[in-house]
């Protein structure tokens, strides 16, 4: 299983195993990682699972789709070039070791 490491706004770091196909948001929420709210549960409808994808993964993971792009414009924290909604990043084997910083504000 590929792993994901989350850096939460409260300073905690959590590393979790991810099922291939599950989203970076789902893995975090199921295990109670601090800072990811994910109100809509993954429908790209709320912009409350905003993360910054760390180098060197940002290029591999890629940028947002059109709808996600629009939703990120309305996110509560500053948008950066590496911003993604974590519900829209589906885990793949080659993302093993992925690290993300969770945006400080989600609501």
């Amino acid at each position, binding site marked *: 299983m590929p792993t994901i490491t989350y850096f939460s706004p409260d300073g905690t770091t959590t590393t979790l195993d991810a099922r291939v196909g599950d989203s970076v948001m789902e893995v975090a929420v199921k295990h109670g990682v601090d800072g990811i709210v994910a109100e809509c*549960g993954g429908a790209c409808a709320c912009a409350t699972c905003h993360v910054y994808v760390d180098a060197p993964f940002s290029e591999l993971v890629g940028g947002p789709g059109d709808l996600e792009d629009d939703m990120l414009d309305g996110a509560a924290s500053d948008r950066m070039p590496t911003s993604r909604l974590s519900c829209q990043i589906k885990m793949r084997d080659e993302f093993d070791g992925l690290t993300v910083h969770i945006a400080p504000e989600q609501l």
Partner: protein
Amino acid sequence: MDDILIIGAGQAGMQIAVSLREHGFTGPLTLAGNEPATPYQRPPLSKAYLSGEVDVESLELRAQSFYDDRDITVRCADAVVSVSWAGDVGTAVTASGAQIPFAKLALTPGSEPRRISIAGSDLAGVLYLRDVADADALKARWAAANNVVVIGGGFIGLEVAAGARKAGKTVTVLEAADRLIARAVSPITSEFFRQAHVRRGVDVRLSVQVSAILGAHGSVTGVELADGDVVPADIVLVGIGVVARSSLAEQLGLQLAGGAIVVNEFAQTSDPRVVAAGDAVMMPHPLGRPGQVRLESVQNAVDQAKVAAATLLGVREPYRSVPWFWSDQADLKLQIAGLSTGFDQTVVRGNPDDEHFSVLYYADGRLIAIDTVNDAPDYMAVRRALAQGATIPPELASDPTVSLKTLLVPAPA
């Protein structure tokens, strides 16, 4: 004893349990549900789960280890059938005969699909969609079905219709009212969805009465309309609204309205020891407008649950969240913020024919809600405006070249 029992292991019940622990409650905490699985997401059942894009494991809201780590007892597949108080101690009895004591109670029973009762409604293949078992029954017939008839042109029905069309099936939507999604959106948005589904090959019939469901060998074969027309069907999906589950509230003698559990702005029922949240609840309008509302949505389940958890711990935080909803139908994303009931003016931004537009709703000149189709920036701007108590002048809102978020002004008190 300070045991808290939550009856109803859906989104709201799960959130009350999580919030109680986040707020530092350390007493015994039980979440009791009638379904086999721990709490899971329902919205994908009519979309990604039906199409096979996600499996049942990915629907789970929290891992078992999450509950274990927080000492939350989740009792599955054992419905609470009776509940009573003896002095300050309550007791719930489950279908298997287990007794669960409590000092405080949260009711999050949710709702169940309104059943259709006409000739043939008990035939195999007449289906509803609420839980995983319903979705699995639908999936079991899905591959072999050529003709899908949807009774009810609301969110659930239209989502399933869109999925069925995408899977290449012949799809008919039968709606008794003269427009689609009539309870949630304005005629402008209703008409847009009618045209959009017709463009995608769905046969949408409005103002029709279903007189019988026809079958052969115990299985559905068609739907007969009042005018005698028969629509062939291998699956009949009935989505004609939901009914609050209020039998336990009734046992406790709690105040009900229209079958729903009445709560105040603190999610308290007519018995201060009992809170309630989610689909089964009737509450004061969360943004302070007149009237009582029922909100059947993920947003309400989560936000009202947080208020209910605080109330259980003696912290009074009135429910003031902006309601929001979404519906994914084919490649159309409908997002709604606010409640449009009582509007007296609308402003349309963009052109519905482009499948990218929004409708803003006003009452007495003040913004109260928005429907957007494939327009997340407008949705987000209005959600924010309503949360801040701001408005957007209607005369400025109609220009789609100007971003709505630049137009927010404080609303008059």
